[in-house]
């Protein structure tokens, strides 16, 4: 299995000097409930940031503040060095492309009319880019949006978000309605844009797709950023998933074990755990285990990292 955390492109990594997004102590409360709680992070030019977390973690609340749909209760949100405020958000939006998985589009318009409408709001000739995107996404531009399937609406939203060559792309569950072929097209487009210096901030439930394109991952839980890791850090952290079938119960290594499970089936013990320590420690431990029937060792993925953050802290909640 190929390492999940290897970078798919390197162009963006050489350009990350300018701060595009800056959140400083941002809290958003709805009544007494803090949907985002004292969040701080920065995103630099050319980064592709995956923004992951369970439902209700505060991802969309954060994205709403990034786009100026809502104001933070406390703290500051800056885009391109300027404070993001609802009344002046349109100035930043000239450099932002946005699409979400549940985006509402005017149902009475055709795909063509909506894309033209979106293009017209940003000065410049975007026709060449439109042709490019139309070729790869193949949106049903002549059909009324109201008559389209969810996936086709999603293609229209993505083309409209990308068509003006924005400096920053903010995406909220962007592939939730796309078929696997279109998901690949989407990921290729993100890679291509990133290679040309576009900054991407993308929330997604599809951890594999986040892992494939991201240079950095923010993991959010209960309104807080729990992990902020670059691809290198994730790769270094890496680790293995070990599944072991033995005749006898085994004693796990003392340290560096995450999410251990053990079941007894057909007279054998099936033990599984994530190991995030040094490989030599794991090898030494395995050599001491007796009665081994079967053993599989695979690389940990972002999904496992995600689960370890959520499941290891269940007791804290």
């Amino acid at each position: 299995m190929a390492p999940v955390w290897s970078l798919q492109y390197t162009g963006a990594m050489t350009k990350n000097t300018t701060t595009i997004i800056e959140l400083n102590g941002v809290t958003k409360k709805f009544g007494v409930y803090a949907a985002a709680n004292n969040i701080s992070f920065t995103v630099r030019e050319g980064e592709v940031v995956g923004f992951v977390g369970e439902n209700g973690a505060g991802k969309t609340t954060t994205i709403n503040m990034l786009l100026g749909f809502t104001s933070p209760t406390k703290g500051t949100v800056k885009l391109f060095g300027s404070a993001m405020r609802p009344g002046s958000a349109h100035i930043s939006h000239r450099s932002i492309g946005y699409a979400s998985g549940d985006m509402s589009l005017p149902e009475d318009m055709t795909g063509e009319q909506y894309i033209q409408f979106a293009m017209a709001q940003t000065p410049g000739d975007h026709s060449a880019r439109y042709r490019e995107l139309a070729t790869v996404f193949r949106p049903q531009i002549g059909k009324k949006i109201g008559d389209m399937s969810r996936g086709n609406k999603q293609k229209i939203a993505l083309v409209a978000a990308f068509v003006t060559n924005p400096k920053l792309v903010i995406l909220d569950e962007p592939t939730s309605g796309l078929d696997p072929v279109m998901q690949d097209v989407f990921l290729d487009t993100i890679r291509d844009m990133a290679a040309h210096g576009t900054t991407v901030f993308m929330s997604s439930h599809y951890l594999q797709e986040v892992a494939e394109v991201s240079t950095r991952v923010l993991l959010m839980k209960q309104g807080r950023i729990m992990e902020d890791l670059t691809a290198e850090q994730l790769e270094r952290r890496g680790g293995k998933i070990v599944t072991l079938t033995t005749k006898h119960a085994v004693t796990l290594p003392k340290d560096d074990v995450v999410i251990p499970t053990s079941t007894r089936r057909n007279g054998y013990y099936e033990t599984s755990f994530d190991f995030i320590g040094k490989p030599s420690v794991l090898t030494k431990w395995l050599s001491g285990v007796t009665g081994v029937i079967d053993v599989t060792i695979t690389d940990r993925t972002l999904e496992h990292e995600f689960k370890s953050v959520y499941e290891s802290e269940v007791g804290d909640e």
Partner: protein
Amino acid sequence: MNSVFVRTLQDKRWFILGWFIGFALLATVMVVFYPSMRQEGTLDQLMATMPDAFKGVMGDLADLTRFDTYLASQLFDIRASLLAGIMAIILAMSLTVSEEEKGLLRTMLSLPVSRVSLLLQKWLAMVAIIFVTLLGIVVAVYALQGTVDAAITFAAMTKLFFMTWLVLVAIATITFAAAMITGRRAIAMLVGVLVMAGSFIVSTFGMSVDWLADYEWLSLFHYFPASEVVRQGIETNSVVVLGSLTAISLAASLIVFRRRDVN
């Protein structure tokens, strides 16, 4: 073509057509009934036996002898204003909270469109739609007045049309502002219905209920006495009051909508 104003008009084309036809049909009925209504005597005697509140609903029957005052009292003063008031509230709601609930407002605001520009373009579209739909009355009256051997001058029609439009713009803008300020359907609907129904009740029953008459100035219809408008022209004060209400509502919505969270 790619402005919010034009998109709104395009989006509302069937609404415009439907209400235009509706107003034209209403005007048609009123014009067609004019010959039987203008026969003096019978209706006057009947109305004399009715309570004052009912007379308020039916309008001043002394106005029936002239076509212009007949249209003022029977079409513009009651029926068209009431029907168009309902339309104005529906229109204001559909351009604001309905779009916000569907997520379309967020979609528009994700583009480089400022909140001030978005609000003003929607408001202008609303004002234009009210204007165009009310033209259904004008078209029907001028198309059919020859068939009943009657005529209304262009000046009288213009005054009635302008004041109807002004009252409706005020009702629509107050509802629009409540929606843009709060983003809540229930509040916007409540404000719109209170203004509309409250004005109607106060103006209608103010004739017969003494204590209510003291509050008649609170009714928006108080500033559009249609028969008086035909006879004596438009009162500047009425235009100022309705215009001020509209301007204040619009300004309040601009100030708050620039800052508030969009759902």
